[in-house]
């Protein structure tokens, strides 16, 4: 496992690939005796989909929340687009955040706003030069990407779980991010809708050449979307490789994900 990791890191150096995300020695604890992350190292290259697997409470969501500054790490280096986010002020952090999309587990749509307003909300604040017509066209284009233009004037309460995920994804895409972080994108959805969302993630990666970190328990989603998979155990990365490589892995813990 370690040799595999060294090989991948050597390959990155040899091919001069600069990761868009790089985390070294990430530690995070919530109170005494609750160390969630104990030295996580990971990287994501441009245009790559990285899937992070792990059982509930293993710190997967905390890891991606550290990437956007929603959770402040206790220790470690987090570089996004080459900038160490621990050393930046709020304005610089926001400049990085604009380039990152985040799809929350429960979509986190603004309940008091319609689908249109949900999508317009970040756009009106960060693309102030856009005319009303251009904003409308951008919103419609984002909804077309997820196949939900007909829901443009609906309220979030009127949408099904799958539709909420799609609208959440459309909102994530609205500022054309270079990195998308997915926090359990298929949780709580039926098999068919889960597959549709996974296919959508893949289609978005191909269309916009985004790099993604996908936190999931769903092995079908991991298989379909992941270029590379990392498995978190006890606050550290326990295994890493492609789906096919990990499927053949002899480690009992790793195998338990593929049963």
């Amino acid at each position, binding site marked *: 496992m370690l040799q595999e990791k060294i090989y991948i890191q050597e390959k990155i150096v040899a091919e001069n690939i600069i990761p868009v995300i790089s985390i070294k020695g990430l530690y995070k604890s919530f109170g005494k005796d609750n160390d969630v992350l104990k030295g996580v190292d990971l990287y994501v290259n441009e245009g790559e989909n990285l899937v992070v697997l792990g059982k509930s409470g293993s710190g997967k969501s905390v890891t991606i929340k550290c990437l956007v500054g*929603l959770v402040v790490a206790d220790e470690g280096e987090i570089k996004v687009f080459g900038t160490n986010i621990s050393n930046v002020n709020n304005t610089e952090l926001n400049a990085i955040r*604009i380039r990152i999309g985040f799809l*929350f587990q429960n979509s986190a749509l603004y309940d008091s706003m319609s689908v249109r307003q949900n999508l317009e909300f970040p756009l009106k604040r960060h693309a102030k030069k856009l005319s009303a017509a251009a904003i409308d066209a951008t919103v419609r284009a984002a909804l077309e990407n997820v196949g939900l233009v007909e829901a443009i004037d609906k309220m979030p309460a009127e949408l099904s779980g799958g539709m909420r995920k799609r609208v959440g994804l459309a909102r994530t895409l609205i500022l054309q991010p270079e990195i998308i972080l997915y926090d359990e994108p298929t949780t709580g959805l039926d098999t068919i809708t889960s597959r549709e969302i996974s296919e959508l993630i893949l289609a978005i990666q191909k269309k916009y050449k985004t790099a993604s970190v996908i936190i999931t328990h769903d092995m079908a989603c991991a298989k379909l979307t992941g270029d590379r998979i990392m498995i978190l155990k006890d606050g550290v990365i326990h295994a890493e490789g492609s789906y096919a490589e990990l499927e053949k892995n002899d480690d009992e813990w790793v195998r338990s994900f593929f049963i």
Partner: protein
Amino acid sequence: METYLKNLFNNAGDVTVFTGRFFKEVLKPPFEIKECFRQCYLIGYKSLPLVAITGFIMGLVLTLQSRPTLAAFGAESWLPGMVALSLIREIAPVITALICAGKIASGIGAELGSMKVTEQIDAMEVSAINPYKYLVVTRIMACTLMVPLLVVLADGIGILGGYAGINIHSDVNLFRYFSQVLASIDFLDIFPATIKTFFFGFFIGLIGCYKGFTAANGTESVGKAANSAVVAASLAIFIIDMLAVQITDLFFIK
């Protein structure tokens, strides 16, 4: 006891930081003016019927309850002035503020609490939108501006309620009633009472926002945020009122 005191000081520190952040953010552009107007509409306009009904009942009941006592001293003609003074100085500001604490502070606490629990506040933050400015500053500003206006409305309608109360037992002309009301009140009755309503509004908004914004994870905390917002805001209203009356007494009443 040690833990209790530690929590008390921690909470006091958090509230101070939260309040300090308001004064920092309120002066810093961009200003969320549109959202502030929307909140003024929701907080002010939507509370009009409730405040109007309560104001009318306050005036009516106060008149009916005070009349027998004044009549026993043959001072029934003082009733309009007494009702107006009681309403303007104390009853209308405090009762209206308490109604606002129940309606507005709990509403804000529950709304922001549920936004926190469902990660909507985090979603704003990762979109590089300042949730404090958009959600907190606008609501506190709207409360600070709208509560005094609601109190003025309650004053007016309460005095009208007093007119209705007087006319249950006697026949008083509306013009004469208002002449007596205006003759009995002066600037120093209105000014301190109005100033304190800005503080009522500010603290109703601040406490509602603080409780919602700092709600813990889980749906249970939404109910707790709403409940504790009402309790804390009501208590704050009484404390501010006590301080305001003391200050008024020291500086304005001779």
